[in-house]
């Protein structure tokens, strides 16, 4: 039986009076890759940012309803704790430019004022970089700046930074849109590995990527969750005409 890790209950998000996510109810199973797709402005990124309480960081942004992590309301938790448990990786790789690869990986601890013994830091760095398949490539240049790496490596470094905090869920907002096809394919392969330990929720405009990497797909349109089903089903026989029109490119 699949256990649910993230659940949204009647979740609504607003920017001022603009109602951008409308009554979304979704259950996300543990150790799965979930793709979230939909046209620009459909509310998918806002929903993603609602999951780890980043939505509330935007001025004038409000939300109603619940996001549950392991059946607990994230609004009742400390936002920092929520963001440790639910890490996020963004569209463009954003390693800290002045920090070394090593310090980038453990930046989450430093920023939160956690002091760790050197041996433990070494272990976290090696484990995190190994998990994102970057260790072999950078183990001899850990003290070099993260920005010396290629785009794909930088994105994996950012994933390692999130992984270092031992999250349960990783959110990705268009994680490969700034990468070339080879780096994209490396990151996609990584998703398959990462789901053994984490639950991945990926917003993507690239439908073929959604089809390749995800177990389940959610389709958003005008703030509503139109359809949420097994990815195989969504791409062979979607139930809703709006989904079919979107994935076949017949959207007007």
């Amino acid at each position, binding site marked *: 039986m699949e256990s649910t890790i993230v659940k949204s209950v009647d979740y609504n998000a607003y920017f001022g009076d603009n109602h951008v996510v409308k009554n979304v109810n979704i259950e996300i199973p543990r150790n799965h890759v979930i793709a979230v797709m939909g046209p620009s402005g459909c509310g998918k990124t806002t929903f993603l940012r609602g999951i780890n309480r980043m939505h509330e960081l935007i001025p004038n942004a409000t939300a109603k309803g619940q996001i549950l992590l392991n059946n607990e309301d994230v609004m009742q938790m400390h936002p920092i704790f929520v963001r440790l448990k639910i890490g996020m990786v963004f569209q463009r790789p954003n390693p800290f430019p002045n920090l070394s690869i090593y310090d980038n990986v453990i930046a989450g601890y430093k920023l939160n004022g956690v002091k760790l013994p050197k041996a433990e830091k070494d272990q976290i760095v090696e484990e995190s970089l190994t998990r994102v398949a970057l260790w072999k490539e950078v183990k001899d240049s850990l003290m070099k700046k993260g920005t010396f790496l290629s785009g794909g490596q930088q994105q994996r470094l950012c994933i390692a930074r999130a992984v270092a905090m031992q999250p349960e869920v990783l959110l990705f907002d268009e994680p490969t849109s700034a990468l070339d096809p080879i780096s994209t394919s490396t990151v996609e392969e990584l998703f398959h590995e990462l789901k053994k330990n984490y639950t991945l929720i990926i917003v993507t405009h690239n*439908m073929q990527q959604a089809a390749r990497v995800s177990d389940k797909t959610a389709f958003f349109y005008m703030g509503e969750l139109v359809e949420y089903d097994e990815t195989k089903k969504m791409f*062979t*026989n979607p139930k809703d005409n709006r989904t*079919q029109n979107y*994935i*076949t*490119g*017949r959207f007007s």
Partner: protein
Amino acid sequence: MTQVETEIQLLKKEVINMWDLVRSQLVKAKNSMLNFDKDLAREVVLKERRVNGAELKIDRDCENIFALLSPVAVDLRFVLAVLKINSNLERIGDIAEGIAKYVLSVETPFKKEILDATYVTKMYDEAINILEDTLAAFENEDTILARSVFKKDEFLDDINIRANKLIEDYLKEHPEDIDQALYILSVIRKLERVGDQSKNISEEIIFYLEAKVLKHKHSH
């Protein structure tokens, strides 16, 4: 219209043209046999190359659509269905050619008596009729018509099952017609296969339109 829609419309036209060609081959094979028209039979054998050419072209077009346009949902089901329909149509083309080759190899016209006794003429009509129904179902996206093919195919199956007995009875009275009887038996077997191919095609039409898989299910 999106590029994938345009390509799918073109593919649909190509498949319909192939269907027409195969239907015409089957009708000509029938007429060449009933009228003992060896010229017509020769034409069928020659035109088989066009059927093969059409099959290859459709295969290649499907391959290109997969490679270049990554079809999904109804588009994906359409291209998958076309690939299988294409191969079934090509086999019906082979059957028409096979019949035409029989006509070229026999010395005398088929006797009316044996044609009547074995229901082979009726079987021809029904096989052509079924093929036309599948074409209309495909063109008009009509799954009711596609389903009607399953019932009609039973008639062909029935004659095929009774064929040995019909031929045996006929030969008891006309042992001199053994050559003709054996040809007719082979034609009956071939026409029964046309029914099976048409049934397969109907299953693909339903799969494409309703996303239901009927293959290997006994009751439709």
